[in-house]
């Protein structure tokens, strides 16, 4: 294999291996306490009642967190639950957010420091213990992480690549972060935004 082909294939192989880490161990286990049963129960209740605006737990409104993650997960239960089971359908959402987070890391790293740095950053993140743990659990933080990174990447397109139209996805992703976990999302987006504006 000549050097050019190796140079082109290696990043793809590295990214595929990183994705494999996300999928392994996600679909072959039951719910783990303390968080997963509660989150799964809320998603299941949302999928059964069809109320995608206000999360409920054991019939009671549970608005400690906004509904977006639960709504997406409830949608996943409705679509994939009958084929792969409810718990794997829920974990699929987390895995998809993990893939999105890696993609955003790749794009942001590429924009800031070049493609090689982007790929390296994504591969490093994919194999970090904290990342693996968080993206193998049914937890809101997976969605929050994705939306925050996606909004920061959008702002990097606005201010570094000079493409102001990316203000619109930035607004959408910032709203996604808010609708996952409240004000903490926009606050964490505002800090790098201020750094880029300044």
């Amino acid at each position, binding site marked *: 294999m000549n050097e050019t082909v190796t140079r082109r294939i290696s990043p793809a192989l590295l990214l595929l291996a990183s994705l494999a880490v996300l999928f392994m161990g996600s679909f072959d286990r039951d719910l783990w306490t*303390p968080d997963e*049963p*509660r989150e799964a129960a809320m998603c299941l209740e949302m999928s059964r009642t069809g109320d995608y605006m206000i999360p409920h737990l054991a019939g009671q409104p549970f608005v400690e967190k906004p509904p977006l993650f639960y709504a997406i997960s409830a949608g996943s239960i409705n679509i994939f639950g009958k084929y792969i089971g409810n718990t794997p359908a829920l974990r699929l959402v987390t895995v998809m957010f993990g893939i999105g987070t890696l993609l955003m890391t790749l794009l942001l790293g590429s924009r800031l420091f070049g493609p090689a740095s982007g790929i390296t950053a994504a591969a490093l993140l994919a194999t970090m213990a904290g990342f693996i743990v968080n993206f193998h659990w049914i937890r809101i933080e997976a969605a929050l992480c994705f939306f925050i990174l996606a909004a920061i990447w959008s702002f990097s397109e606005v201010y570094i690549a000079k493409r102001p139209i990316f203000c*619109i996805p930035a607004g959408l992703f910032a709203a996604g972060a808010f*609708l996952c976990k409240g004000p903490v999302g926009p606050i964490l987006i505002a800090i790098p935004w201020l750094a880029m504006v300044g």
Partner: protein
Amino acid sequence: MQQKTNRDRKTDYYIGFHIAGLLIFLALSGGWVVYLGNSGKFRGEIPGGNSGEIPGTGYLILTKKCT
């Protein structure tokens, strides 16, 4: 009246997109907050709590319910 330069137009363009992004954010996040407020399910204190213990049920029952 002074004509707009290309630089002025570019600035307007930037500001326009920033306002559009901000409006999208406010409409979506604020929309949910208003909906929640009008639903009567949020009355100053957060229902549900963070303990993860549900009166009369428990994790085992919930785990069964989900799987």
